[in-house]
């Protein structure tokens, strides 16, 4: 195959245009030629300039010699500057003229040793039907036996949601037939739940919609205890395999008031509730593991109807298995309901489902198929009477909750709330324990007292978040234990960071040491030895050497110095920081890099520019 000319190749790659030399089009202009490559986002600017002409746009011609990467970067910059780049989810949260109302029901599996009404053990992936009591499969004659230990995580969950614990609550039966419910009814708390009137506060850092401002409070109507159902595995040919290990597992259902008005806020709410439940040890498996499920109720009404206080007909969406699914399903359902109402139709109160990758919810059950649950108090069970002393003890022993922890990290250590949240979420809360371990060790080594400046904390946080993350493909490969230890012992990382903080080693050396510790080449506690053995101590060159390097680098850079002169003379608005760093980079490459600190080089260069080069330039 003959070699394709570079200009033609770059034209094809960047604009999707193929040379028509020798094509039928040249002979017969009526035959349309379609562009082979759909313009990507980066090249949209270029092709929009090209329009329908076959002439090469000037930018492509001019940059035929430039590297492709620089080309694409410049185009992206130009596109961003022109404002044409579409921001993700920019207008997804509201539809003008309509108000969305969402209520959420969350079911969370409680972290208990035993089930709710039988002494069978809770399990996750044990062999099927190995933890089943007689009552779990509704053997005739079996009776429920309430297990009071289930109240510990239940009450903690309700307290974390700021609910009022009801001293007396009762159990009711919710009747419906399904093969995963052997008794023919589910025991729940319909009339008298054990907790009411809670509140969850969401802040901007929790990921609420920008339209909701700085913070939004969602009221919780009630929290109730109920049973879980069996696990069904569908097999081909309408066959289902049942595992009753999960029947009777304690769940709590959290029902909110319909106060959420934006899809992102709804997803943020579910995320926040999962974090709160996990931090009080009430529910330790998340949405991905199936331990937490959310059903949402969606309704819309016109903006002018907001004052009447009446909400539109609501539909319920079930089978939501991730936070993104919550947001996407609400947006899809809202758009569907608005479309129905705008064409003059009526929204039916039905149950709908959502699957990953769908664009619209699908109907599961209409109003005619609505089940009549015939709630009735369960006569086999007595009331649940929760002692005040128990509630007081649980309330006082919850420890610091996530919001308080993030506030402390931000205020005491100066971390950004985004970094704090990331630290807390990684490795199921283990990464932040690791960070605390590293920080404690670091503070001991540096001999710092409280109240001193917290730069070391920021250094530790950056390394625990980003540098540690660079070591492995998946975070789980770090083998982080819940107590905060991993393949990089916290003591060793603290040693590396203390040397780095004291400027005894450079950042590059520190990163290499981290690799060494991770790969086991440096044994535990052997960081200082390794530095000694490799002669890695930072022996900075003197100020005079920096000055000499600066002089050497500035040779022939009169044009660049001109920029600094223009700033000094007031002709330019901003200090040419980019040009300064360019010169610093030249210095680093020119000199013994392992003995130079970029910050010192910058300082010396800046001083010499002010003091030596510019006066020389002005004088000449």
């Amino acid at each position, binding site marked *: 195959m003959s070699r394709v000319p570079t200009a033609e190749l770059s034209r094809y790659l960047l604009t999707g245009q193929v040379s028509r030399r020798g094509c039928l089009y040249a002979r017969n202009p009526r035959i349309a030629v379609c562009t082979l490559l759909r313009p990507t986002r980066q090249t949209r600017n270029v092709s929009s300039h090209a329009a329908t002409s076959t002439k090469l746009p000037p930018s492509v011609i001019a940059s035929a010699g430039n590297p492709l990467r620089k080309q694409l970067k410049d185009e992206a910059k130009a596109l961003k500057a022109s404002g044409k780049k579409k921001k993700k989810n920019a207008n997804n949260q509201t539809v003008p003229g309509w108000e969305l109302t969402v209520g959420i029901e969350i079911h969370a599996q409680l*972290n*208990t*040793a035993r089930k709710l009404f039988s*002494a*069978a*053990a809770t*399990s*996750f992936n*044990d*062999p*099927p*039907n*190995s*933890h*089943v*009591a*007689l009552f779990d*499969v509704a*053997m005739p004659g079996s009776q429920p036996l309430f297990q*009071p*230990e289930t*109240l510990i*995580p239940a009450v903690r969950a309700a307290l974390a949601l700021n609910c009022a614990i009801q001293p007396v609550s*009762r159990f009711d039966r919710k*009747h419906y*037939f399904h*093969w995963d419910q052997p008794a*023919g009814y589910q025991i729940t708390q319909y009339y008298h739940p054990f907790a009411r009137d809670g509140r969850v506060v969401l802040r901007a850092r929790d990921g609420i919609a920008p339209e909701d401002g700085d913070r939004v409070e969602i009221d919780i109507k009630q929290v109730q205890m109920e049973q879980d159902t069996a696990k069904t*595995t569908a097999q081909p040919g*309408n*066959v*289902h*395999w*049942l*595992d009753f290990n999960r029947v009777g597992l304690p769940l709590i259902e959290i029902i909110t008031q319909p106060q959420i008005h934006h899809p992102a806020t709804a997803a943020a709410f579910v995320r926040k509730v999962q974090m709160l439940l996990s*931090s*009080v*040890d009430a529910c330790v498996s998340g949405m991905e593991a199936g331990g937490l499920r959310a059903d949402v109720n969606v309704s819309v009404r016109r903006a002018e109807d907001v004052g009447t206080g009446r909400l539109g007909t609501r539909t319920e969406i079930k089978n939501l298995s991730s936070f993104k699914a919550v947001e996407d399903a609400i947006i899809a359902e809202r758009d569907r309901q608005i479309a129905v109402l705008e064409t003059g139709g009526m929204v039916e109160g039905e149950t709908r489902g959502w699957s990953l990758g769908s664009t619209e919810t699908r109907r599961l059950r209409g109003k005619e198929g609505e089940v*009549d649950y*015939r709630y009735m*108090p*369960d006569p*086999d069970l*007595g*009331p*649940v*009477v*929760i*002692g005040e*002393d*128990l509630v007081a*003890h649980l309330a006082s022993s*919850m*420890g*610091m909750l996530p919001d308080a922890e993030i506030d402390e990290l931000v205020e005491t250590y100066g971390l950004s709330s985004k970094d704090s949240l990331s630290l807390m979420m990684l490795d199921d*809360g283990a990464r*932040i*324990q690791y960070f605390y371990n590293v920080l404690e060790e670091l503070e001991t080594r540096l001999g710092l007292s409280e109240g001193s400046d917290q730069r070391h904390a920021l250094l530790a946080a950056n390394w625990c978040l980003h540098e540690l993350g660079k070591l492995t493909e998946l975070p789980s490969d770090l083998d982080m234990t819940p*107590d*905060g230890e991993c393949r990089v012992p916290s003591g060793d990382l603290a040693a590396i960071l203390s040397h780095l903080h004291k400027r005894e080693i450079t950042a590059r050396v520190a990163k290499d040491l981290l690799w060494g510790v991770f790969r086991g080449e440096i044994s535990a506690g052997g960081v200082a030895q390794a530095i000694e053995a490799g002669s890695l101590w930072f022996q900075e060159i003197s100020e005079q050497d920096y000055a000499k390097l600066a002089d050497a680098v500035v040779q022939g850079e009169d044009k660049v110095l001109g920029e600094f002169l223009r700033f000094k003379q007031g002709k330019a608005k901003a200090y040419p920081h980019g040009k300064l760093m360019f010169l610093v980079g030249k210095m680093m490459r020119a000199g013994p890099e392992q003995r130079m600190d970029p910050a010192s080089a910058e300082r010396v260069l800046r001083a010499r520019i002010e003091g030596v080069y510019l006066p020389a330039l002005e004088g000449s």
Partner: protein
Amino acid sequence: PSEKEKEEEPTKITPQTLSHLLRLSALPEPSTPAESSAMLQTLHAQLHFVRDIQRVDTTGVEPLSSIRDETPEGIREATVALATLQHALAEEEVYGRCKRPRRMRSKGTGGGAVRKVEEGVEDWDVLGCAAETVGRYFVVRSG
């Protein structure tokens, strides 16, 4: 008296309502019209009995949900207090800088080892009454 009787005139249960009620309880539909009318007759008699009982004045009386000891001692016995759960709380540990309590995970979970079967609770032939099984699963057919 005739007006009072008219007020108490009950709404008739139609065969459609009867079908609905039977479906809710997973009971078979009546096979002949005679069976249907016999069921309806019984149902009406029962409803008449219920209406009669509902005439009793129960203002201020809490409905009975289950027969329990409602004396103060009985309620005290049923109360789940701190003392009742002391043993479960003792199995917890406090971890981390935020001093959060957490249930100690037994060695069985997550390590692949199966937890010991609870004596007297789980040690019975669970699959014995199943009509159809596959391995350790119950089999149900739908459709």
